Structure formats: structure tokens, C-alpha cells
């Protein structure tokens, strides 16, 4: 036994020994906990709050939340109440199950974003809906879609999913008015399979079916938002999927092109050859948003790649966000981010998959080229190239990734940096903005993330804050660009809207 091992044993056991009693078990949650659940909900089993990215970059904290540390969220109840009031004041729309939806966009999205510094103004976010305790016991969950204006902080509309369905992720086009919402329907209505020795039992596993909805905004009109189901032929997979044993058909990522005309979907291919060594297989499909037609289909069988984060405890049964796909180069290509863990050494790769080149052999590896590849760091010391940051937030020009880094020395002012790192050799990283954190605000941790990046990564929509940071001087949401921070008034909805997925 080394000296360090011995010291760790003695230290941890000394710390643990200070706990000599525990409070009694409370099996019925208090009312305030139920309030909190609307903010920090449970996700289907193992669903990891993985990063959505590019246009719909998920805050890094947006992870499936399986616990409710009340102290952390104690301030969230009034915010939730405020959000509810706002939501009641706007339209609440129940989405009917419309097989083919209404009329779909036939023309490219061409409007110009009207937020600060050319950033998107409107967002679509998932918001957990408070269900009854009985429903929760049965593994039923529901996420609504909230559409809002980040400049005015007004909510434009709230959409409720059809029966047995939850909205699961959102992705945005570049026009600030067009989004696609990914939804999953459970055959049983439950999103928690019955388990036996940690393994789902066959007769307790639901079949999950994917669907996508086009969300179009018309701010200032009588109907500021409309939702219609895309005519993409749905497919299903087993709810027993896990990171180690994904189910054929399991969807990993969804990304809407900047034009709003094409939808890219990454999944585990449901083909006979993929029944064995399923984790080695990946597929990227591109659909027409207007017709639902399958335009492209690439498949790979590679034991040295994974589209999900290597730290994922499980591959989300119902995936969150768009972690691995980004439309780049004016929709000519997709950036596909992969990673692979070999004995603790994690390799990250970003590949360019040309969609418009006409090279369409169907092989994901041969039709794509490597933009960046390297070993990812474990110790949070090398900018954006981190194990926990992967898949990264790739800019739409395909040459940068953006992230946060920080220093919290506790005894002196610290800072949170919003950085953009090049994916091409010879370019230097850019410090987009540095937020200072005073020592007195460093207790209680910090919650921060990059929510959206401009094509070149020089302008970001970010948030940072935390319980130790007073709203007046420590909780921030807004646009950062060239060293300047422009606040946006999303504070009232911040906790509710940044807890799951948000796309700008």
C-alpha cells in the first residue's frame, strides 16, 4: 500500500466517522419537493443529460437529474411558480397526434436573427411538467416545449406532447424562427423499464417510437407558434438500451440544418448485421423536412468509435439533445463527434461528413474525413479538449469548439472563461469573455454553460450563476462577444428552462 493510499483511507474514514446518525426516512415527498421536481426532474433510467450542442447547445448541467438536493434548489420554487404564471398567460397548446401534421415549410429559412450582436432572439426549451405521484411511480414523465423571447423574457407558447409521449430534445435552424422537436412515445406510457439485478426484464420493457415536430414561430401574430408533425417514417427501439448494449434503432442525436430544410439523425442502425457487436455500429441519416424522405444514409461498423460520451453510464434510453451532430459549412457537411475509451485513454475525433459532395457510398467512415483527432484530457487543464466536454460544441463553420474554463481559488477573485478553441492547426484559442467571481461568491459552487455559439465561435450565449452567487451580481444569462457581456432578461425562467434542453 502506498503512502497516498494509506492517507486516503485514514482521511476518508475520519471524515465519515463524523456522521453517527441519520435522519429518519421520509417516503412521502414534501410539497416543496414536488415543486422542485418541475425544475429538476427525473429522467428515464440512466438518461444522462448530455450536451446538446451547436445551435442547441445544452448547458453542461443539463443532465438527467436523479436526485433533489433541496438546498441547492431551495430558491427554485418561487421561480417555478413565476414560470407557471407566465405560462398560463400565454397559449397552452395540446399537441394532437397528427400523423402528417400541417403544411410544412417549402422554402429555406432565411430570416435574420434579431438578438443582441446578431444572436438568436427566440428559443425553444424543454420544461418538465409536474405529474402526479402516481404517474411518477409508474415511470411516466412529460416534458413540454416552451417557446420564448430571450430579449423580452416573454413566453410565446407552451406545447404539451400527445399521450404516452414526452418531448425529448430541441434543435434550431439559423433563421431564429424554425425548430425541430424530437419526441418519444412509449408503448406502455412508462419510460422506466422493470429491472432485475440491474438488467431490464423482457416483459417490463416498453417499445419506444421516435417522432419529430416542426416548430415554426411567427412573433407578433395571433398565432406566434405552431407545431406540426414531420412526415418522417417513425421507427422504434427497445427501452432496454444502454451505453454498453444499445438497442438497434436507438436514436443518439438530432440536428436541424441551418436552412431548416434537412434533419440529420444519428442512431444505432436496425439492420441484421448490427445485432452482434451493436455498440460498434452507428448510422447517420438525413431527411427532408418538407417531405420526410430519406435523402442520405451512412452506416459504419467500427469498434473504435462511439457517438456517445465515454463517461455515459448508460446510453440514454430516451436521448437528450443533439450531442454528436452539427451542421457546418453552410449545410454542406455534418460534423460528427466521436470518442473512444481504451483503458482510460480517451480519443476524441471530429469528422466532416460531406452531405453535398455527392460522395455517398453509404459508409460513414470512408465518406468522411477527420477534422480533428487527439487524446482528450481528464484533468480539465487543456481547454475544451476534455473527456467530460465531449462531444463538443462545434461552431457552424466547423473550425472551432467552445466551452468554459474556470479558476476558483476561494481566497482571491476567480473567474469563469468562455473560450473558443480552433479545430485547425495554427490558430490560437480565443477568450470570448471572462467573468470575475469574487471570493465571497465562490461558496456553493457555480453553474455555468455555453448555450449557443456563432459559426466562428466569437459570440456565445452563456449563463453562469449558482446559489452562492446573488442574482444582482452573480447570476448571469446573456450574450458574450469580444470581451463584452450583454445581459438578457431570462432570469425568471432560468432555472426551469436551462434544466433540460434549450435551442436558440
Amino acid at each position, binding site marked *: 500500500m502506498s503512502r*497516498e493510499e494509506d*492517507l*486516503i483511507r485514514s*482521511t*476518508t474514514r*475520519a*471524515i*465519515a466517522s*463524523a*456522521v*453517527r446518525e*441519520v*435522519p429518519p*426516512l*421520509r*417516503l412521502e*415527498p414534501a410539497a416543496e419537493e414536488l415543486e422542485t421536481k418541475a425544475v*429538476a426532474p427525473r429522467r428515464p433510467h440512466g438518461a444522462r443529460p448530455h450536451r446538446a450542442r451547436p445551435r442547441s447547445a445544452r448547458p453542461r*448541467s443539463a443532465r*438527467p*437529474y*436523479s*436526485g*433533489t*438536493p*433541496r*438546498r*441547492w434548489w431551495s430558491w427554485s420554487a418561487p421561480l417555478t411558480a413565476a414560470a407557471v404564471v407566465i405560462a398560463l398567460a400565454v397559449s397552452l397548446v395540446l399537441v394532437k397526434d397528427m400523423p402528417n401534421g400541417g403544411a410544412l415549410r417549402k422554402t429555406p429559412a432565411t430570416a435574420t436573427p434579431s438578438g443582441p450582436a446578431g444572436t438568436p432572439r427566440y428559443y425553444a426549451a424543454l420544461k418538465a411538467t409536474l405529474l402526479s405521484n402516481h404517474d411518477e*411511480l409508474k*415511470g411516466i414523465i412529460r416534458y413540454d416545449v416552451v417557446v420564448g423571447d430571450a430579449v423580452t423574457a416573454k413566453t410565446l407558447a407552451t406545447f404539451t406532447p400527445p399521450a404516452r409521449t414526452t418531448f425529448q430534445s430541441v434543435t434550431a435552424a439559423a433563421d431564429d424562427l424554425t425548430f425541430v422537436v424530437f419526441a418519444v412515445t412509449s408503448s406502455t406510457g412508462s419510460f422506466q423499464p422493470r*429491472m*432485475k*439485478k*440491474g438488467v431490464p426484464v423482457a416483459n*417490463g420493457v416498453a417499445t419506444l417510437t421516435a417522432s419529430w415536430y416542426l416548430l415554426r414561430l411567427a412573433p407578433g401574430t395571433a398565432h406566434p407558434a405552431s407545431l406540426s408533425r414531420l412526415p418522417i417514417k417513425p421507427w422504434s427501439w427497445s427501452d432496454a438500451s444502454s*451505453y454498453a448494449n444499445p438497442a438497434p434503432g436507438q436514436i443518439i442525436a438530432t440536428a436541424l440544418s441551418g436552412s431548416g430544410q434537412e434533419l440529420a439523425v444519428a442512431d444505432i442502425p436496425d439492420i441484421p448485421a448490427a445485432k452482434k457487436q451493436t455498440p460498434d455500429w452507428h448510422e447517420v441519416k438525413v431527411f427532408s423536412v418538407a417531405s420526410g424522405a430519406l435523402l442520405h444514409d451512412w452506416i459504419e461498423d467500427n469498434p473504435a468509435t462511439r457517438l456517445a460520451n*465515454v463517461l455515459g*453510464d448508460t446510453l440514454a434510453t430516451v436521448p437528450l439533445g443533439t450531442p454528436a451532430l452539427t451542421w457546418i459549412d453552410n449545410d454542406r457537411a455534418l460534423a460528427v463527434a466521436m470518442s473512444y*475509451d481504451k*483503458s*482510460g485513454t480517451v480519443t476524441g475525433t471530429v469528422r466532416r461528413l460531406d452531405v453535398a459532395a455527392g460522395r455517398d457510398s453509404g459508409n460513414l467512415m470512408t465518406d468522411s474525413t477527420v477534422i480533428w483527432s487527439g487524446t482528450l484530457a*481528464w*484533468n480539465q*487543464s487543456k481547454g475544451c479538449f476534455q473527456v467530460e466536454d465531449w462531444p463538443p460544441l462545434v461552431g457552424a463553420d466547423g473550425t472551432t469548439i467552445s466551452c468554459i*474554463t*474556470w*479558476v*476558483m*481559488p*476561494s481566497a482571491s477573485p476567480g*473567474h469563469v*472563461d468562455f473560450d473558443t478553441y480552433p479545430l485547425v492547426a495554427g490558430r490560437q484559442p480565443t477568450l470570448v469573455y471572462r467573468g470575475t467571481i469574487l471570493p465571497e461568491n465562490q*461558496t*456553493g*459552487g*457555480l*453553474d*455555468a454553460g455555453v448555450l449557443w455559439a456563432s459559426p466562428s465561435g466569437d459570440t456565445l450565449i452563456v449563463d453562469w450563476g*449558482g*446559489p452562492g452567487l446573488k442574482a444582482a451580481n452573480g447570476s448571469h444569462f446573456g450574450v458574450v462577444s469580444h470581451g463584452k457581456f450583454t445581459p438578457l432578461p431570462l432570469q425568471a425562467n432560468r432555472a426551469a428552462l436551462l434544466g433540460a434542453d434549450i435551442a436558440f
Partner: protein
Amino acid sequence: MDIAETRMSPGAAASVTALYEEHSLGLVRLAVVMTGDRAVAEDIVQDAFLGLYRRWDQVSEITAPLAYLRVSVVNGCRTAMRRRSRTGLWPGAGASGDLDEEIAAARPGASTGLVESAEASVLLSEEQRAVATALRRLPPRQREAVVLRYYLDLSVEETARTMGVSPGTVKSATHRALAAIGRTLKEGS
């Protein structure tokens, strides 16, 4: 105790309560070591048992309830810490520079609020306090690996199953954590 024997709904509360009485102290201690915050640790353990209770009628059989609950608690700790700090923004930690430099720059024994909350009530030597501080500064996965390996004395394989990663990842994370703690101790001596 075999949950399957008592999984009927009318007995769910009694069964889970019995499990709580048997294992809660150890699990709270584990969560305290992981998070450094007793109140958060108690909440995490409560949630783990509440989750078990809520799913009682869906759980056909669990023959190793402690392992099941331990995974729940480790996941809860990880989630709580991510909630507190999406990227591990713990007071006293840093990442814009080299972590080793940050650790080296840190004053061993200079307790932060979080460290204080867990360790203030026990007498630790200067060396142990330095180890406690260094543990707080480790990336979450490295901290999980060393706590499970050396506090609970789990094997590499058991640790891997609890963390949901490969044994190789556990070995790598443990090696890196020991190296970082060793450097901290060296700087502080």
C-alpha cells in the same frame, strides 16, 4: 435481505425502511466523503431510498440491494455535484490553467466552505486535511474512483460496476488521482 421476498406493495414501506435502517448510515457516510456536504449527502441518500420505494412494484428482484443503492448514491453524488458545478467549479479548484499548478498553488489545509462543512467536525492532521482538500479538487471521476477503491475497499471490478465505466478507466482514474494527491502532499511538505 432479499427485497424480492417483501416486494408486495403493502409491505414496501416497511421493507424499504428496514433497508434504510440497515444501510443508510454507511451510505450517508459515503456521500459525505464524496460531496463534502452532509446535508446534501443526506438528501442524496433519502432520494436513493425514495427512488427504490417508488419503483418497488416495478422491481421484480434485487438480490444485492446494497450494491443497487450504492450505485444510486454514487449517481446522486455525481449529479448533485454537477448541479452545483457543471464543470466541477468547486471553490478552491481551477481549470483554466494546469490543474497540477492549481493544486500546487493551493494551500494545503486552507479549508473552503465546502471542505469545512464536512471536515470541520472531525480532527484531522495537517496531512489528512491536505488530502481532504486534494480530494475535493479532483475531477469527479477520479474522486469517485479513489473513494470507492480506498474508502470502501471495493475491487477494481466492483468500482467499475458502481461507476458504470470500464476497469481500465478505473485504473487510469485512480492512478491519476494518486499522482495528483501525491504532488499536493509533496508541495505542502
